[in-house]
Structures are given as C-alpha cells and as structure tokens.
C-alpha cells in the first residue's frame, strides 16, 4: 500500500517532531506507552531523541510475555513432561525462564516443544497427529485472543479432542485501571495499543479519560503514527481536556471488530489472572467456558507448587513503570538476553531487552 511509505518518511517524521517541540508544556509530562510493540518501536527508531525534554516516556505492562508469571511457565513445562504431549507455543515464550528452566531447555531435555506462528497451526497439528495431545500455550492480549478463540472454535467444531488450550490470555482495561488508580503511578497521558483496539474498539478505554482524567490516543506502530499520537496526547494535556482519540483510523474503527469479540465471547469467559508486577487482577483474563472443559489443558496436571521468583529480579517494578531497567542490579550483569533471568529481558518488547539492545552505550 503506497500510502504506508509516508508513515516512514523522514521529512514528515521530523516535521511532526518539531511541531511537538512548539507545544507550550507548562511542566514535565509523563506519557506511558501501554503496548510492548510501541515500546519496541520507540526504541528501535530512537524516537525519544526527537522529543523535547519535558516529555518523559515510560513503558507500561503491555508485553504479554513480560506479564506472564513464572508459575505459568512452570506449569507449561509440567504439561510438556507428560507422556504423549506436544506443547506448541508462540516463539516469544520459548526462552522465558521458569523456576528451573525454560520451555526451550525442556525441549532439549526431551519434551516435545514446538514453535508455531499461528494457533491455527496447532489445531492442524492436532488434526494430523490424532495419537498425541497437542497443547497450545495461549498468551497474548485481545489481538491474539480472537485468533486463539477462532482456532479453538474450529477444534471444538471438528471434535478434535486431542487439542487443548492452556490459557494465560489477558485483557487490558482492568489491568490499566489497577495500575493507573495507584497514586504512585503518575501518568498524564496514555498511548493506547493500536492492534488491541482494532479488536476492542475505543469504548473500554473511555474511563481512563472520563474517570481518571488521563489523556489517551490510539496509535499505530510506524514512527509517524507514534509521533502523531504523542502530539495528540500532549495537546490534550496542555488544553486540560483529556479524551480518547484515535490516530490509527486506517486500522482501528471506533467500534473495533465486533465479530472477533463475538467469537471470543462464544469461547471464553472473563476470569481473574495473575500479572507479573500487578499480582492477581479480577476480570483481567480469559479462560475457556465450562462447556469447553474437555479442551482445557489446565486440568491435565496440577501446577507445580515449587514456583519461585528470582530474588533481585525487578521485572514487576519495571512493568509498573516504577523502575528503569538500568536500576535493576541484575541488568546487563547476570541478566542479559543470552542468559535472561526475568521475562522483561527475553521478550523483544520487554523494556529491559529494549534498553539492552537499543540504548546508546553512553546513555546507559
């Protein structure tokens, strides 16, 4: 699509950046980009350097790998160790450390762990391997949730009894509410996740502007999208008029994708979910409805009781925006992308990985 090239055009990008610098900011402004994909894009394109000093960008909890607790990885490994089980996972989760080891290590130790690009691939595997139990590790937010719902629905319809879903699917609104209601989290504006809202629409986020007085803008992932959204949010803050605006109209309709939500509602129900950094948050996750219990992998084996977090790991504080990655004493020393201790260093979207890979050495 030719129009998209313009969203990476340097002249346009620098032009919007200079417009941001002309805004009359009365004080320091703290913006949070919720989505890990935005975190990655901001670092990858060096966008912080284009922003004026009063604007501080901090990363939020929108990295599904980062917020997946160690207990889930331990449980997934226990499932993988069962006879006749193949565990399928998005590549993102493979190297996240559990208490003892990662799924990757479990694979090296003899478990059948396979990376898939799509949940549909896991369903296909179940179709072609009727003698094995195929478990899919369902992580992600609403964007991935609708694909997992659609794939699981196909497995149910085709009576593939050997397909099982192990859900750690999370939903944003309640987690954001928990995070932003905490008086220690001082955020003036939010860059909202563009692909999650393509599914949910903007309505679930209205409370952030209306009740919490925080300015919001839905953003795409190109450099121009992000700068445009930062401009929008900053303008709202300067004017004292917080709203939920949408600058990613080419992909996000205000009403999102109703059919995708319908399929999610057909297969899933809300449940409490534990988030690394936030603890247990009510109604912030999705699990299979009781009528689909036969496709739920959680009952294959109990969660191991031996989950332990690494002392010194500050992923939780990083995810709440309270701690910069470099303030963690493990950062870059015992915790590196080659030998990660915390999830934030594994995921390409994790704040720790982003700082490690992309930050200029003298800026650290």
């Amino acid at each position, binding site marked *: 699509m030719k129009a998209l090239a313009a969203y990476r055009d340097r002249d346009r990008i620098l032009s*919007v950046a200079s417009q941001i610098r002309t805004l009359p900011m009365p004080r320091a402004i703290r913006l949070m980009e919720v989505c890990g994909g935005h975190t990655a894009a901001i670092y990858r394109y060096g966008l912080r350097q284009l922003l004026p000093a009063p604007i501080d960008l901090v990363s939020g909890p929108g990295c599904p790998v980062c917020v997946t607790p160690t207990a889930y990885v331990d449980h997934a490994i226990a499932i993988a160790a069962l006879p006749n089980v193949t565990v399928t996972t998005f590549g993102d989760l493979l190297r996240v450390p559990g208490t003892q080891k990662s799924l990757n290590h479990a694979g090296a130790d003899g478990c059948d762990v396979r990376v898939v690009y799509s949940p549909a*691939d896991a369903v296909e595997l179940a179709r072609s391997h009727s003698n094995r139990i195929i478990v899919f590790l369902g992580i992600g937010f609403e964007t991935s949730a609708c694909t997992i719902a659609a794939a699981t629905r196909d497995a149910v319809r085709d009576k593939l009894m050997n397909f099982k879903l192990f859900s750690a699917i999370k939903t944003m609104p309640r987690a954001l509410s928990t995070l932003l209601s905490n008086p220690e989290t001082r955020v003036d504006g939010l860059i909202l996740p563009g692909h999650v809202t393509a599914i949910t629409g903007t309505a679930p986020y209205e409370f952030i502007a209306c009740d919490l007085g925080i300015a919001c803008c839905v953003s795409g992932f190109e450099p121009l999208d992000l700068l445009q959204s930062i401009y929008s949010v900053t303008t709202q803050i300067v004017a004292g008029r917080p709203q939920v605006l949408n600058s990613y109209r080419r992909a996000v309709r205000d009403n999102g994708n109703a059919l995708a939500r319908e399929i999610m509602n057909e297969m899933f129900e809300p449940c409490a979910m534990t988030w690394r950094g936030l603890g247990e948050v009510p109604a912030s996750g999705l699990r299979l409805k009781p009528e689909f219990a036969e496709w739920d992998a959680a009952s294959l084996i109990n969660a191991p009781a031996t989950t332990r977090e690494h002392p010194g790991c500050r992923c939780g504080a990083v995810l709440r925006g309270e701690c910069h990655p470099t303030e963690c004493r493990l950062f870059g020393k015992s915790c590196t992308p080659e030998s990660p201790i915390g999830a934030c260093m594994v995921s390409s979207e994790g704040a720790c990985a982003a700082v490690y890979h992309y930050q200029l050495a003298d800026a650290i």
Partner: protein
Amino acid sequence: MCLAIPMKLISCDGAQGTAENAGLRVNVMLTLVPNAQIGDFVLIHAGYALTIIDEDEALDSLAVLSDLGMLKE
C-alpha cells in the same frame, strides 16, 4: 505487543486465503474478516486477518497532518 502487518489479499477459499506483500505470500485465516475481498489490504497477526486496512483513511490521516501545518511538504 501485537505484531501485525498489512498485506494484500490475493485469493480466498472459504475461511482461508493467501495474502501477499512484495513477493512474499502467506496463508491467512479469514474467519475474523468475512467481508474481506480480493484486493483488500488486511492486517495480519498470528496467521489471521484481523481487520481491513482502509487506504482512504491512511491518506486522510496524512492530509489531516498536512492541513494542521504539521507537514512541511
């Protein structure tokens, strides 16, 4: 958190289709966008099309930026 890119739908067969970008062709599930037609640009994530990308909106957004004097062209 959600890596998704626009690709052009070049064929469809029920719930499945093929999307193309710069000579790369991928299988894609169309379950979530039953109204997608050949020639549409769709946003692809984890093997599924999530929504149709509106090229007019893409151009409109640029026009808005331009009108606001934000783009020196």
